[in-house]
């Protein structure tokens, strides 16, 4: 009732603005039509659509097919096609072949991908880098997949660095990315499905999954979600991620964004769904739980005790980076008795000449640390090292000497800052770093009681988060059968089940040997 009221109120005040837009009804109408039998009309149409000759890299080449004795033209975007191929396998055979044969397919050596008649369809294909061949008196247009887009080669993973295991990372080329996944899962049930999500830029998203594992309802849910976007362009996968999330304003991420194909493959093997997009050197894994975001592939590549050791370190780092500063504030302000007397004297001595309360001190240093961190990221690499020197020298040493902060605060901040680097997922990292500030305020306000209260509220919130219907802490709570790979990882032989929250078609990964 109240919601309805606010909704109607909102509607009243936030009306959509009206613009005087130019209508493109004529273009749309044109794209619905079929191509013409008349050669000249076709040339005219496509010249108009692609604004030739204003558009410099769209090329039309007219010639005569010798064997058929009729005129023809090809149209392509020169920057997106393999020019050599077009010349050698399409144009040369058409011009030079003298054997009388009735079919284009028999003349050209390049395989004809398909034949089509619709103008809109052809236009869409040309923008993607194919070559279209029009022949006089032929109502079909021949499409050749000649796309060759320039891009980066396959390189080492930069953001998710590991010591053991595969090093290669996704790049901006879709074909490469699919190949990287396919070479890890050699199975005919691995499906790569294409979906166009936007209208104007026609960005396509690839849905990668294993047909005999993934739950159909989940797949349908994701497809429906992808089909529901009413937007002109989504340029990058990271933007798509924000469109897909149920709570885009939430501090905590609910979709895993990784640049490692081995990680993507391992999630596909468990029945997750992976989204790829051209021009994005990463992939999205859906649904993602807290554990997926918290783990690192290294945990699995290292031997079980070592892997669990770094897991343990990561848990510790999570707690330190979240609570170190707030705990310090709570103790020095509210629960002084906890500190051993000798240490308390030393701390009081070092704080004696500092004019600020410890909350201000901590906030100043936290902010300084975040600034150094951000600056270190954005700075051009030749002057990168200077940032470290500036940060360490000025903010550390000098601030203490100037009596702006006490030395113990530096230890606390350094510890919590260092620990925050151990959380490898960048979204999770941000979430932890930002919630740290909330805890600092809570500690400043009500000591440990405030921290505990905020912590519980945060837990309630996290537990209620859902990623495509999967609870954030599944399969721990609510409990599901799984590989038991949560805080501590069992030996690989013991991980017998796929995660139950996905309800995969095939639950058992390996039988008891």
């Amino acid at each position, binding site marked *: 009732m109240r919601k309805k009221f606010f909704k109607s109120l909102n509607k009243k005040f936030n009306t959509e603005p009206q613009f005087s837009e130019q209508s493109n009804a004529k273009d749309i109408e044109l794209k619905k039509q079929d191509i013409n039998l008349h050669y000249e009309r076709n040339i005219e149409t496509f010249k108009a659509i692609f604004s030739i000759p204003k558009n410099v890299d769209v090329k039309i080449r007219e010639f005569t097919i010798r064997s058929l004795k009729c005129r023809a033209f090809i149209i392509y975007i020169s920057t997106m096609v393999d020019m050599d191929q077009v010349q050698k396998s399409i144009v040369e055979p058409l011009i030079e072949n003298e054997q009388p044969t009735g079919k284009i397919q028999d003349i050209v050596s390049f395989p004809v991908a398909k034949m089509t008649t619709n103008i809109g369809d052809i236009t869409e294909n040309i923008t993607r880098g194919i070559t279209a061949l029009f022949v006089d008196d032929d109502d079909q247009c021949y499409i050749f997949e000649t796309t060759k887009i320039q891009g980066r080669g396959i390189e080492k993973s930069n953001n998710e660095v590991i010591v053991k295991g595969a090093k290669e990372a996704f790049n901006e080329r879709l074909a490469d990315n699919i190949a990287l996944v396919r070479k890890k899962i050699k199975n005919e049930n691995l499906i790569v499905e294409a979906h166009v999500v936007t209208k104007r830029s026609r960005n396509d998203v690839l849905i990668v999954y294993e047909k005999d594992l993934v739950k159909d309802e989940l797949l349908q849910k994701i497809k429906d979600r992808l089909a529901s976007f009413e937007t002109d362009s989504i340029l990058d996968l990271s933007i798509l991620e924000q469109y897909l999330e*149920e709570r885009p304003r939430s501090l905590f991420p609910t979709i895993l964004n990784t640049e490692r194909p081995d990680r993507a493959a391992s999630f596909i093997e468990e029945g997750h769904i992976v989204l790829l997009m051209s021009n994005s050197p990463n992939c999205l894994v859906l649904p993602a739980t807290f554990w997926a975001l918290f783990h690192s592939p290294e945990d699995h590549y290292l031997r079980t005790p070592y892997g669990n050791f770094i897991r343990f370190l990561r848990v510790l780092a999570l707690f330190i980076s979240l609570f170190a500063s707030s705990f310090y504030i*709570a*103790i020095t302000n*509210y*629960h002084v*008795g*906890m500190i*051993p*007397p000798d240490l308390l004297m030393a701390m009081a001595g070092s704080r004696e000449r500092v004019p600020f309360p410890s909350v201000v001190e901590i906030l100043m240093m936290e902010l300084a640390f975040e600034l150094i961190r951000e600056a270190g990221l954005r700075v051009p690499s030749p002057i990168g090292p200077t940032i470290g020197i500036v940060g360490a020298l000025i903010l550390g040493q000098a601030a203490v000497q100037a009596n702006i902060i006490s030395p113990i605060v530096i230890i606390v901040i350094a510890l919590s800052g260092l620990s925050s680097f151990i959380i490898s997922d960048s979204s999770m990292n941000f979430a932890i770093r930002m919630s740290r500030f909330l805890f600092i305020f809570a500690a400043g306000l*009500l*000591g*440990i*009681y*405030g*921290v*505990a*209260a905020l*912590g*519980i*509220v945060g*837990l*309630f*919130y996290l*537990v*209620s988060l*859902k990623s495509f219907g999967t*609870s954030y*802490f599944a399969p*721990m*709570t*609510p*409990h599901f059968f799984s590989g038991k790979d949560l805080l501590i990882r069992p030996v690989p032989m013991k991980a017998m089940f796929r995660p139950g929250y996905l309800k995969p078609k095939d639950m058992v990964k390996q039988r008891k040997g």
Partner: protein
Amino acid sequence: MNQQPGKLGIREYVSIAILMVGSKATEDTPTVLFINVQNAAWMIPVLSAGIFFIPLLLLLKTISLYQGKNLFFVIQKLLGKYIGFIVCLVIFIITLVGISLDSRLYTNIIRAFYFRTTPILVLYALLMAVCAYGAKKGIQHIGSVAYLLIIYAITGLFFALGLSTQASNVNAILPIWGPGKIEILKKSSQSLSLFTDFFLLTMLIPYLSSSKDFRKGTWIAYIYVSIQISVATLFFICMLDQSLGGVGYPFHTAVRYISLGSYIPNIEILFFIVWIVSAFIRFTAFLYINALMFGHLFKIKDFEFLIPSLAAIYLLIGNIPESQIDVGLKLEHMVQAVVGPLFAAISLILWLSALLKGEFKHEKDKNNM
């Protein structure tokens, strides 16, 4: 996207039950028991668990006749529309008052031991606000949080108890029968209120994945909690001996007393975190159950919207008593003295009326068919 309310698994249910009832060991219960039967106090939880076992068993048996229905439904079904309504209303009001006073008691503990200068209203309001937020998230999420934290709550408690042995004296439990066997038995039957929370937990049956899980979970939690309270009382007796009778909240006194080696003299804050976290869960669950009761009584389907207002009512009722003595010694005991026998009696009446109505026979016939 709409989020469907999920079901509560057995792990989550047991966690909630343990946190709700088990935290009695950390408030004034051991003291009250000690005042009653001196150094035999540690037997009382186990004995009264044995006594309350009968009504609880009968209650569970009666409720299991109605698959997936909660306590109030069964009461209204068996006792008729009007009497049933009155009984439910009485249960609701008693729990409302009981929990208000209980939460006030917890606030008093926070104030007395950890935040001596903070106004009580601030502490109390924050407690209630957090609980209201949690309860509004729904029972499944309360269960999940409880499950995530239960391990810390239990280890924290037993760690504190273990450390308290530094200063304890085992001889304090002698003479083993305290004031005498008859006296112990008499007082045990008066301490049924220790376990009345299990009576209220039957409100949650429709939210559990299966009623078998509910029965199993209830017994697990029941046995565990009786042992936990008993063990905790035993440790407190060993540590504080005769002075336990004069110490309001032995757990908090104990954690102030113990130290981690000679270099960290005061570690009560660590245990405070564990304790306050389980207190949050406890009242969140109570708040949810109470809202559920209210919703059932007055046929309000979206009872979750009532939670903030119920929390405010708790806050108001809990604020009425002037001092903590009023709360701890007078009102609280009055409520507790009534609650235990009353709930046991209701369980028995339900079972009897089911028996007389022949519901058990129907069930048997149904099974035979």
